């Protein structure tokens, strides 16, 4: 099975040259997506054509990619808002104030858990990261303090 990826709505896929859909059992919704994939249409184009929600389409594409039936044609992150690296620096700095020098490792571990890296991190997922990192703060008061500061950073990035 291929590595776990979560495409966004801008991603463009093509049918795999290594594996045919006839080799695996597919649900009717997966077949519908396969028939639409042409190497040009984005996930959102196909979602609209099949009257799927963005979330449903992303789930189907993720499943087909894991079954190695489709390949990424364009960068998965094309058109997505990537989080600036300064966010991670700020997060590590604020977390260090709360839990000490172990903070950068906590952030790195959380990123691994999410299957993402700092340089390709869609900023819409920053709240998840903040929440995951916060779990490591045992003092309830300090946890809220950290979240309050991070909430300000998120607002500055227009994440609402």
């Amino acid at each position, binding site marked *: 099975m291929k590595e776990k990826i979560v495409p966004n709505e801008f991603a463009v896929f093509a049918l795999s040259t290594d594996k045919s859909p006839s080799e695996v059992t597919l649900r009717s919704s997966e077949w519908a997506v396969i028939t639409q994939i042409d190497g040009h249409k984005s996930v959102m184009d196909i979602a609209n054509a099949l009257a799927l929600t963005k979330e449903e389409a992303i789930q189907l594409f993720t499943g087909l990619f894991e079954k190695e039936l489709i390949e990424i044609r364009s960068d998965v992150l094309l058109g997505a808002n990537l989080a600036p690296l300064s966010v991670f620096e700020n997060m590590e700095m604020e977390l260090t104030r709360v839990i000490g020098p172990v903070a950068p490792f906590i952030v790195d571990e959380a990123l691994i858990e999410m299957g993402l890296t700092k340089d390709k991190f869609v900023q819409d997922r920053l*709240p998840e990261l*903040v929440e995951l990192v916060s779990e490591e703060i045992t003092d309830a008061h300090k946890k*809220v303090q950290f*979240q*309050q500061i991070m*909430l300000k950073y*998120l607002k500055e990035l227009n994440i*609402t």
Partner: protein
Amino acid sequence: MKRWLQEITNLEGIEGVFISSGRAKIIAKLGLDLNDPQLEALALYTLRIVAAFHLKTQKINEIEFYWKNLFIIGRVAGDFLVITIFTTPKVLALLRITLNVTLSNLLEDKKFMRVIKEQAADKNILLEKGEMTEIEKNLITKLK
């Protein structure tokens, strides 16, 4: 108080939010079409779930459930309950963080906490009772 509720309703996909007392009385609401009795019913339902967990000695302060195409998150803090109704789970992580911060601010808001404390014991009910029970009379006799 409204400012804190606005912090929540400003998030994408939030239908509305309300605060109820521990007796399911509506203290404040923002962005909701539902009337007070409907909100009270929802608050009561959430409080019952919390109480059921408490009876099992499992202290919980958050409940998330799905109802009629809506997502609902209830947070209990002290003597009050904050219930948020939203339409997309995408906002969940940010909402949970915002709720944490909002609840912390509400707990520090003396004016708000005074309102909540007034709701905790319903003085009217006690005054309307008319007659005192033997236990109450005994207690009064002990007062100096």
